[in-house]
């Protein structure tokens, strides 16, 4: 049932899909829980997370989020890490998205 693929798909509210490594995406506790079979969400079967209903996760924002996943993994244990560049116009929306993804998640569909 839960085929642990290496890559998972994240779909934004405006229908952009991003394929990222599972380990990178699970940096976000929200995504990790969505994909975790123990919680029984539909996402865990399809290995895809749909953010279609959530306004704050638009395509451009989700792209930056994925970039952040990899940036974090790359600098995991380093000192003196250079900051990731965030375009100013995007910063507020990115903040909202980051806040959403960092917290708990409400399931889009639940498996019984």
């Amino acid at each position, binding site marked *: 049932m839960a085929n642990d693929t290496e890559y998972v798909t994240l779909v934004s509210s405006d229908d952009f899909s991003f394929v990222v490594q599972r380990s990178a995406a699970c940096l976000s506790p929200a995504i990790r829980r969505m994909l975790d079979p123990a919680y029984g969400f539909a996402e865990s079967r399809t290995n895809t997370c749909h953010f279609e209903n959530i306004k704050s996760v638009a395509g451009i924002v989700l792209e930056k989020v994925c970039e952040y996943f990899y940036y974090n993994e790359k600098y995991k244990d380093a000192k003196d890490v250079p900051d990731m560049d965030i375009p*100013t116009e995007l910063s*507020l929306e990115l903040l909202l998205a980051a806040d959403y993804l960092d917290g708990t998640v409400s399931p889009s569909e639940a498996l019984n």
Partner: protein
Amino acid sequence: MSGRRGGNRIRGPQSALTDFLAANNISAAQIRDDYERRRRQSAEQDDAGEGASDQPPQPPQATDAALAAAHELEEEEVSKNKKKRKRSEKDAIEKIKKAKASKKGKKKSKKDDSDDDEDYDVAQDMYRKARPAPGQFEHCEICSKRFTVTPYSKEGPDGGLLCTPCGKDLAKELKHEKKAAAKPGGRKRRKLESDRLDGIARGGAKPLQQLCIEKVAKHHDEIEELGDMPQPVVERLSEIFSKKRVMKPKTLRLFLRPDLEDVIVHDSAYLEPDDYHQIFATVPNMKRLVLANCCQMKDDAIDYMLERCHKLRHIHLYAANLVSNGMWHRLFREIGERLEVIKLKWLDDSFEDFVVEDMVRQCPNLQRVKFKLCRRVGAEGVAAFASLAKLQHLSLQISSEVPTSVLCDLVSQRGSQLRTLSLEKFIDADDTLLEALHDNCRELTKLRVSENDTATDAGFTALFTNWQNPPLTFVDFNSTRDVDNNNSEGPEDAIGMASSGFKAMMAHSGPELKHLDIASCRHIQLGAFMDVFNGAQSYPALEHINISFCNRVDTSVVAGIFKSCPNLKKLVAFGCFDVQDVVVPRHIALIGVPRAQEAIEQFGVGIGVDEAIGRMVEVAA
């Protein structure tokens, strides 16, 4: 040059060499000049064709074009010669020549079009106005004002000249751009070090929210509104804005939303009385009000607040010095019933003891009280706190003399339900206070008795021995020691938190202690430290330790601390001069250990605790 005036149409193939030179901005025409001159000087066999035929034949098109170009340029030069030329003009033309030559050198196959283009361009250049000499009048390119040209006149973006004010503006813009472009790397490093000193920097990248918040804070003046931001994020942003001192009336508006329950402004120094009115107008449903540095808040602001905000439960006003006693009375009278939390600091001029008594009467539901640095509150005010039936958290720092009996009385009446007690700078409080704590407190989790030089070690030991209170999570006994310049070791019976007191305290609260602060408890001996942090005993909850200025501490103690406290995050050890050569394990920030060559804070990266200790032992051995 005069020799060419007859329109000597020299035509010949353009060599590869000419092409190459042209590509390197060396003018073929100029070389021709020299050649002509040399030819004239030597004997005359002026068969240009002969000279030209020395060179290997080339594609005719390029040749023609090149020659045409060369000719045009020659002509131009000649005609210019006729007029009285300004120097800059000649330079401009030289530049054009070179540009044209290089352009021709690159273009391989162009036909008639190129000729036309060149003609047009060259013609344009000829018609371009020369720069007027200093002393002459010229119109500014940007504002079209007439001004006198000086040697310092700046050039505008289109090549014309600018008057002095426009020139200054342009120079300022350029300077700004340059400054923005050249980001000094030094600032980033300093920020990183500052973060580490705060103990929040970890290895690896910053959280995304952190990055975004910093970006938003940097561009704070461009934000129009915050949108649908959740409350904790709004709070965090307001903290950062306050820290950077940009909480001005304009930015304040970002944080006021009608649906918010809390208004938190940590730096209201820039806010004017009208802004306070606006706060209360926009957020009438607020339950929690935090205004620090609210120096400009006056009586009428409080008046308006009482009118509009009927749900206030939590008031936190620091430095509200313009509010009069009468207004405080009114405040307690009108919303005293609902008030659960009141925190006041830095009240210099008003708020006397009788106001405290009034407050206690009118606000029976107060649970948290913090009164610090309120100059006019004294012993009677403190005594009044004893009658607050629901008091759970009490924090006091009173500058006037408060006899210990008052404190003991307070503790004995309220002690049994107190969860937090913080008594700072009660210099003369003695062992009776500690006894009262021992006898009465059953629910304390946070205890602070600091800056005291009367209570003795025996008193502390007695407090923590057989104490029915469960283990504390937060302990702060900093600066409890004897202050006597003639006797730095202190008396025989140690004053303040010393060896036996320390041991007793750790024995009592060790299992659940999270935060330990014993800075300046310099009577604690090395033996006590070694006993407590002996590596075998584990303090699983301990995250933050401050042992600054406990000068008996040495490296083995620090090693022991690393071993005994598996979840340690921050160890502050200023002034511990026997601590040297520490190897810091990962996730721990060690702050304050002095080594001239190294950073003031050392951050552990990638080493486990055991390995770190092993290395330290090697070094010591």
